[in-house]
């Protein structure tokens, strides 16, 4: 008995399978399936195409094709209807460093190089010594950054009134992030503590801060904090804003961390206690490492919110990136260039926030599926 061939098995006289119709595969099939599958879908597609036609060509033309990229000193150097990026070029130093002395700007560069280096080191998988790097970032880096940016000990002092632009935005964002996480963890632990007094105080703080807008917290930090301190004692306006932002962020962070703590099974606590670990050892070695891992996406999202919210300091008169750009729009030499300034600032914020949100999405996908609910 011979082995039956395929055509024999499918029955004599049957023709081989035809290829699928040309209109259901390839580019045409994809178009039919995804864009023109029904009358409603076709209408939506056409509407979307029309919208794109309305928006994209003019914007591309304005921002790139007929834009001015050359250097210049006033808006008279710009020609045509396109964007005048000349203004951004001429005031670039202002946008990044504001009034930080030109000869000292290397210090700002060095600080943020260190910061980004450490962050990239932490984010890339399979780099050695992550724990040391994290320790550096949260313990060694803050005083180092203060020394580099503010001065003292051999470096010329640069008053915080001269700080501004992207540098100030990054300083505020970093301070918010570095301080809100530890404070938030403490608050979250407090809210889940067995001690009623600690629990109540943490809860009142968290709920109070979350109920009010950041502006009122900043107003409180800038107007009321000086009243709270003993006579003659005062501190820097920027420092007050930082305290406000750090505590504001901490309340939100606490809720995110609490979510992670609640997601831990009882078994983890019981196993840790059975091993004879005390509260702090159990928390630091067993609970927090797991809880924080689960909520990393939430933490990153809180960071994004905090970073965007740093722009609110313009209301209490600090010159962050947004405020510096508003300053530029009021410059008589560069009159009528609001759109360029807003577009530049929007692009910078978008670059930071979008990359953070993509990273958080990537982490969410990477977490083992068993951890997902």
């Amino acid at each position, binding site marked *: 008995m011979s082995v039956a061939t395929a055509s024999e098995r499918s029955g004599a006289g049957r023709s081989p399978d035809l290829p699928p119709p040309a209109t259901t595969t390839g580019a045409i099939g994809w178009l039919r399936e995804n*864009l023109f599958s029904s009358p409603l879908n076709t209408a939506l597609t056409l509407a979307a195409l029309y919208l794109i036609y309305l928006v994209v060509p003019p914007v591309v033309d304005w921002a790139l094709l007929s834009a001015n990229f050359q250097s210049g000193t006033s808006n008279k150097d710009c020609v045509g209807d396109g964007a005048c990026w000349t203004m951004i070029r001429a005031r670039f130093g202002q946008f990044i460093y504001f009034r930080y002395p030109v000869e000292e700007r290397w210090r700002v560069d060095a600080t943020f190089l260190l910061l980004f280096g450490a962050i990239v080191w932490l984010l890339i998988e399979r780099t050695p010594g992550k724990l040391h790097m994290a320790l550096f970032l949260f313990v060694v880096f803050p005083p180092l950054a203060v020394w580099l940016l503010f001065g003292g000990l051999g470096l010329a002092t640069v008053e915080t009134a001269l700080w501004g632009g992207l540098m100030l935005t990054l300083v505020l964002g970093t301070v918010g992030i570095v301080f809100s996480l530890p404070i938030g963890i403490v608050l979250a632990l407090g809210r889940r503590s067995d001690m009623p007094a600690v629990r109540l*105080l943490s809860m009142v703080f968290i709920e*109070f801060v979350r109920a009010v807008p950041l502006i009122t917290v900043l107003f409180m930090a800038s107007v*009321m904090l000086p009243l709270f301190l003993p006579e003659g004692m005062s501190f820097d306006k920027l420092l007050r804003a930082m305290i406000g932002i750090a505590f504001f962020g901490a309340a939100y962070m606490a809720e995110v961390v609490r979510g992670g703590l609640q997601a831990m099974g009882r078994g983890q606590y019981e196993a840790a206690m059975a091993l004879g670990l005390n509260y702090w050892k159990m928390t630091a070695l067993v609970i927090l490492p797991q809880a924080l891992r689960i909520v990393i996406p939430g933490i990153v999202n809180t960071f994004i919110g905090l970073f965007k919210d740093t722009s*609110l300091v313009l209301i209490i008169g600090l010159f962050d990136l947004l405020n510096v750009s508003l300053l530029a729009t009021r410059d008589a030499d560069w009159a009528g260039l609001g759109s360029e300034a807003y577009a530049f600032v929007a692009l910078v914020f978008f670059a930071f926030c979008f990359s953070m949100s993509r990273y958080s999405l990537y982490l969410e996908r990477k977490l083992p599926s068993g951890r997902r609910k």
Partner: protein
Amino acid sequence: MTAGFDRRSRPLRLSWRDERTRALIIQLAVVAAVIVAIASIIHNTAENLANRGIASGFGFLDDIAGFDIGITIVPYTATSSYGRAFLVGLVNTLTVSAVGVILATVLGFVLGVLRLSRNWLVSRLVGAYIEMTRNVPLLLQIVFWYFGVISSLPAVRASLAIGETIFLNQRGVYAPAPITEPGFWTIPAAFLVAAVAAIVIARWARRRQEATGRQFPALRAGAVLIVGLPALAALATGMPWTWSYPVLKGFNFEGGMVVLPEFLALLLALTLYTASFIAEIVRAGIQSVNHGQTEAAHALGLKPGITLRKIIIPQALRVIIPPLTSQYLNLTKNSSLAVSIGYPDLVSVFAGTVLNQTGQAVEVIAITMAVYGIISLIISIFMNWYNRRMALVER
């Protein structure tokens, strides 16, 4: 615990090693530290205020404010009291928040559904829009709409006209306003009656269907009532209103009603920003409903519309409502960014102008924070109630 070791029944030992003693000591220390901190803050504040000659107490609320406010919904003049100015700010905050919440919800749901559309182009387009608005600070968007867009609209004399009745210019949007005549009250009254009747019919229809299985088109009947009854009332009373059209007189429009640019910019920015967050929440909510639910509903013979209304949306809402609540709270709190473009909201009027004039920072900030706290509380209570209604009833 039924039997055996119960640590609560053991007598308390005065030792650091006893867990309960330790907890007690720690709590006492924490409470003492908080009390000392608060006491020193109160002491310092009182001393500082006395040194600066600033009065304290809430008596200033009755003093004459002496400044003008651009947008007032409740009656207000420069001779009104600070308390009145507070009320103006509060009403302005509530107005922009309420309108913003409604618009952002509608736009957010539409965008969220479109994001899930099987149309590749539409879904990508909405995705790009969501990412663009979510990743740029709200304050920048407010400033952009106010200084960038509305300020660059044409001047009053060169207004953009839509059908010669609605005019767009730097000073806002001018639209016809209805002027009511006697007998107009019948129309809102008819609307109210129709709304109540629609609810009653819907309940009756549901009860009858549960009892007998017979269906009644309650939704359609309600819609007909809500549109028809006020229309009937209008016809019966002979259309008791006239339109007042905005007319260019001298340097400005007269007549009609106007939406001022500050309100418009703030509302636009708040709505577009929050809508993109709501869209993501809605998308996640709908995606959280297992596809098997749709298949099961189709297998039972339900039409796609009913499947969406009775199967998908009720289940998606359970996932949507809690984060939606926090978006509503965010929108209300974010309306305080009005201060940057001079829309006279609570923070701008009260924590801005009133604080600067009186110097009574403690009282003013305390009142402002308390108001936001109360608003947050009310929204939370309402949404929690709604969430409980929607929650899964497990047997």
